[in-house]
């Protein structure tokens, strides 16, 4: 265990990462991309911290800096109180990371061979390796497939094997970059249970995802990141409560009946927000309102005269919070 003077597993300050790429055949120009633009946050020991954001927001770049794979352009990172640039090798012994997808495994080797290979890279004692691999395959539900080549695995199985690989050397801090991407709902649920189990064992976990429900279910705290900056950071419940108690009334109608619907919606109070989305012949209308009952009363006659096909009301979800924060640029 790395010694640390405080309870923080991760501490970053004004983290910036800029990539420079060259373009052009005859005249070369250098283009700079600021993937991360001044991120400051901390993760406490034993905490499950989520990093949320759309594609290209800077989540993976941040995780790669935190896991020693990228050097920040400026700013500082301390892992368990140690500066990441000065104690790189030491820190690597105590962290585990995975970047999701089908990458990062040797497809022509079996799961057991893959794990043995990485066990050597982490200098696991040979006597422990055998048992550890068996335990981990059991944990991720791959015990029966341990001797099969990884190229025959489904994406869900590969993700689970990634998790087993991350846990080989029993790291105190785990980075999981979109661990459930591309997995079916059942597999994703199982993986989330395993992540919860790890948290209960006292591991510190930093998880990136763009599944809002996942973040809501798993994370103690989360940061929403967009265009390389943190635009909101708090516990999922606090983030939700910061937003209004708006509800959403949703209906479906045909293009032919849309004008009638629009006529009725014109009577709504100005604070309500209406969005229209067309899917083939059907229009989905979404009304964000503080008075769902009033809106329902207005629309009920349309339902009874078959001018709308479905009508319903739902409460705000984490996804609505996320979309609202991203669209408004901050909480």
């Amino acid at each position, binding site marked *: 265990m790395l010694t640390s003077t405080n309870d923080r597993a991760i501490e970053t300050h004004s983290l910036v990462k800029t990539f420079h790429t060259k373009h052009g055949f005859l005249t070369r120009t250098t283009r700079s991309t600021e993937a991360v633009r001044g991120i400051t946050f901390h993760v406490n020991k034993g905490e499950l911290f989520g990093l949320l954001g759309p594609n290209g927001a800077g989540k993976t770049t941040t995780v790669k800096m935190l896991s020693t794979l990228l050097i920040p352009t400026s700013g500082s990172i301390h892992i368990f109180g140690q500066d990441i640039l000065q104690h790189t090798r030491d820190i690597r012994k105590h962290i585990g990371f995975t970047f999701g997808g089908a990458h990062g495994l040797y497809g022509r*080797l079996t799961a057991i061979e893959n794990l043995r*290979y990485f066990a*050597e890279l982490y200098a696991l004692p*040979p006597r422990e390796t055998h048992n550890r691999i068996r335990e981990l395959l059991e944990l991720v539900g791959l015990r029966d497939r341990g001797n099969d080549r990884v190229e025959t695995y489904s994406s869900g199985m590969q993700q689970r094997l990634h998790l087993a690989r991350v846990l080989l050397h029993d790291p105190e801090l785990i980075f999981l970059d979109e661990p459930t991407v591309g997995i079916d709902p059942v597999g994703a649920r199982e993986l989330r249970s395993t992540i919860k189990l790890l948290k209960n064992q006292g591991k510190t976990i930093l998880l990136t995802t763009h599944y809002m429900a996942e973040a809501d279910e798993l994370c103690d705290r989360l940061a929403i990141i967009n265009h390389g900056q943190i635009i909101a950071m708090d516990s999922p419940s606090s983030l939700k409560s910061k937003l209004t108690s708006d509800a959403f009334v949703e209906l479906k109608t045909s293009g032919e009946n849309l004008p009638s619907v629009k006529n009725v919606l014109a009577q709504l109070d100005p604070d309500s927000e209406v969005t229209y989305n067309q899917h083939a012949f059907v229009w989905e209308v979404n009304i964000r309102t503080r008075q769902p009952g009033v809106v329902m009363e207005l629309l009920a006659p349309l339902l009874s005269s078959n001018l709308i096909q479905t009508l319903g009301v739902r409460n705000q979800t984490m996804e609505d919070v996320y979309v609202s924060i991203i669209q408004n640029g901050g909480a």
Partner: protein
Amino acid sequence: MIGNFLRLGIRQMNVQLRMRVLSLWSLALFFTQPAIFSAIGMLLARAVGNTRPDLVYTVLGAGIMGMWSGLVFTSTYDIRADRREGTLELIVGSPTPLRRVVGFRSLLNILAGSTSMLAAVAAALFIFDYSFSGINIPGVVISFSLLLLALWCMGIFLANILAWSRLSGTFVDLLEMPIALLCGFMYPISVLPAWMQQISAVFPIRWGLETLQDALKGSLIDSALVNKWLIALGVSFVYYLLARWFDRKVHDHIRITGELHSI
């Protein structure tokens, strides 16, 4: 400690071998190019009336060519595959230094390439009916060991260049022929113009190879041969030190540019 080191080595080699064996045909690459180059040498000699090929340069030279081409090809393949598959960042992000992984891989690549030398020896014995009775056996053993060391040192040096950027594979591939050309793989170094001979002095392979060729031709272990051995050892060591120095630069560079992954 030593046990850990050896286990890592064995595991590393095992993975590399398993990853590489795409099919028997792909293994033929170690043999086809050297055999074809050797055949060109024989046919050129035949065109001017020499029907018996030269043992040291034309036949065994093909073995050397196979070892070198194999080293370049497999080293380039390894790093490209690891970049593409996303395993390079897992290796770099582990506590084991990349240079140790690369060191074992280069060793395996050279040992695998040695099979083309065995094939060349077999061709000399069974196809061209040569006997090796006149050779200086201790000289050959020491020279061949030094040649392996020279290849390994160049291998780990080139591996650093390969790790530097996703585009450096093209550059390393490009070095295959110039080094074969300058180090006299299939002809004596004296055939080259003087300025080329001077350039080739900076490559340890040239010295290891020259001593091997001398020993195969029956040269005794005299001061000239020993001097060349020492030069081979010295230049190899310089490459080893360069590789160690470069290794640190590469470790920082790839983490600044984000060249660990090809996507």
